[in-house]
């Protein structure tokens, strides 16, 4: 990021300090309960991972700028402003060991939304040049190439072609007037391209009019994760432009947590205006179809299944009941984990953490919290709705010698669709 200076960073801190932030900092009584709600602390027992401690540079700035005693202290030189060294120290706390999962915000007894503040604090971290390498690279690629992982249109087109062959249906692209514009995360395009076929099959059966876009297919938003609102806004704007151009009624956010947060909740505030279309998470849409009786499935999974709530979709996003309704449609042995729904535990990889190589070790330690949940209920398989969670869960399970598969909810629904009488599949 060009032009990063400490001064710009501190200015960014000042700018994000609003009434809620000040109310939060005023109210913190150092009770330490946020530590016990954060999986990075619970699995390492290192106090530096206490959520409120991650905010210390921001808190200091608030105190020095916006309180009587703080201003006097700063003027008298009794309190020094935040330094570059401090921000260097805080980089691993604010990025490597925080997925913006939101559990601390649910637990703080005085009601502090620490996650909100950490997300905002990243603006200052990035502006002062203290964002991690992996995220900087991803963000640059997102801006210049259109995907944080460098996925270009020809690659997506190849995946689309492959999918069309496999399922014997055409995937609509750039269809003006379609009801839904579906976006995809690069993680899905690269690691779980079956998702494309799954939604195509479901939409065909349910009679949903939809399309992809060749101009704006990327759902994820690195700007949010690194904390540069201008870039986050630019990435959202690309989708908005296409959605308006194709005159769709709604944009679908795929199986990716932060993509949903970005487009559904932060988007309009980033670009400074409300949308002229709706935004739905794929799970919301599927559940609506289920309620309308448009999803016809047969057979049920008999294996013992549990559902991992992606943090940005459930606790921070509000989509909690829908996946359960959908899962119960195709599973006869569904069990909840202890601490579930909006109190479920993070997988440990969101918020940019999985893009930071040096965070690999602490990320795997954090996974032990999930392992403890799985140990408690002994499922045969896990279901989730976020490609990043899936990879993290798979990696964590593998490292802990737990051989249970991780399934996508959407793909599982697609697998259980009642087979339509198909026209002959592609001939050779």
């Amino acid at each position: 990021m060009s032009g990063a200076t400490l001064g710009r960073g501190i200015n960014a801190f000042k700018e994000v300090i609003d009434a809620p932030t000040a109310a939060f900092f005023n109210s913190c009584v150092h009770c330490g309960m946020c530590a016990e709600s954060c999986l990075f602390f619970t699995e390492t027992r290192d106090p530096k991972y206490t959520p409120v401690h991650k905010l210390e540079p921001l808190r200091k700035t608030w105190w020095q700028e916006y309180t009587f005693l703080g201003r006097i202290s700063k003027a008298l030189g009794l309190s020094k402003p935040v330094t570059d060294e401090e921000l260097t120290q805080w980089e691993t706390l604010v990025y490597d060991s925080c997925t913006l999962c939101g559990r601390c915000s649910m637990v703080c007894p005085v009601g502090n939304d620490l996650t909100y503040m950490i997300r905002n604090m990243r603006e200052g971290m990035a502006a002062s040049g203290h964002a991690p390498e992996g995220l900087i690279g991803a963000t640059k690629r997102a801006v210049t190439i259109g995907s944080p992982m460098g996925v270009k249109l020809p690659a997506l087109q190849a995946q689309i072609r492959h999918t069309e062959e496999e399922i014997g249906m055409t995937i609509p692209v750039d269809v003006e007037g379609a009801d839904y514009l579906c976006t995809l995360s690069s993680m899905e395009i690269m690691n779980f391209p079956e998702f494309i076929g799954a939604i195509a099959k479901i939409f065909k059966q349910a009679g949903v009019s939809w399309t992809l876009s060749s101009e704006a297919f990327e759902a994820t938003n690195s700007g949010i994760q690194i904390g540069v609102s201008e870039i986050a806004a630019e990435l959202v704007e690309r989708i908005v432009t296409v959605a308006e151009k194709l005159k769709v009624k709604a944009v679908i956010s795929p199986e990716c947590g932060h993509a949903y947060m970005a487009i559904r909740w932060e988007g309009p505030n980033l670009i400074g205006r409300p949308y002229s279309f709706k935004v739905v998470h794929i799970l919301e849409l599927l559940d609506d179809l289920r309620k309308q009786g448009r999803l016809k499935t047969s057979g049920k999974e008999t294996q013992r299944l549990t559902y991992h709530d992606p943090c940005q979709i459930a606790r921070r996003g509000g989509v909690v009941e829908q996946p359960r309704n959908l899962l119960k449609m195709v599973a006869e042995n569904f069990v909840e984990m202890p601490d579930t729904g909006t109190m479920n535990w993070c997988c440990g990889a969101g918020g940019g953490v999985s893009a930071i190589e040096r965070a690999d070790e602490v990320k795997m330690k954090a996974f032990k919290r999930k392992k403890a949940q799985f140990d408690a209920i002994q499922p045969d398989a896990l279901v989730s709705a976020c490609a990043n969670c899936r990879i993290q869960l798979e990696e964590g399970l593998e490292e802990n010698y737990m051989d249970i598969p991780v399934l996508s909810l959407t793909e599982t629904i697609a697998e259980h669709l009642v087979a339509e009488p198909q026209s002959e599949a592609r001939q050779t």
Partner: protein
Amino acid sequence: MTAITNDTEFRRQLEGLDYARQRAAARFIEHVLDLCDDERIGRVAKVAANPNASADELATALHSARAAAIDSHARCGADSDWKEQAGYFVARAATAAVSPEGQVAAGPAWQAAMSSRMAQTSMAIETPEDTAGQERLAQYRILSEFLNA
């Protein structure tokens, strides 16, 4: 028997096999082994091809295949390398082939076939060739030979 000329027939034939022979039909993986650098996959393919493989051997093979898939997947936010992704899809195919009964909803052989084709697609993303289409034809041939054996 009729030659397999399309995916509907292909899938029907695969689903007609009983479970152990389905795994054996995962010779599809062997056909794309050269797209994958990970030597674990070669060993997994051999276990998959053995209809008398014990439960223990399958479990070990499954663990290897999963580990190979994890090691080769595209990291979130990292620059994409579709050639390496080909290896990831081969590992996915191998994982499907040695998964326990009932775990792969689409059926292990069908899943292995699809992932193998995806490996070719991946490899060819930088080039305009329709290698995935060729892979599909190769798979029809492999299955026919297997069924006739």
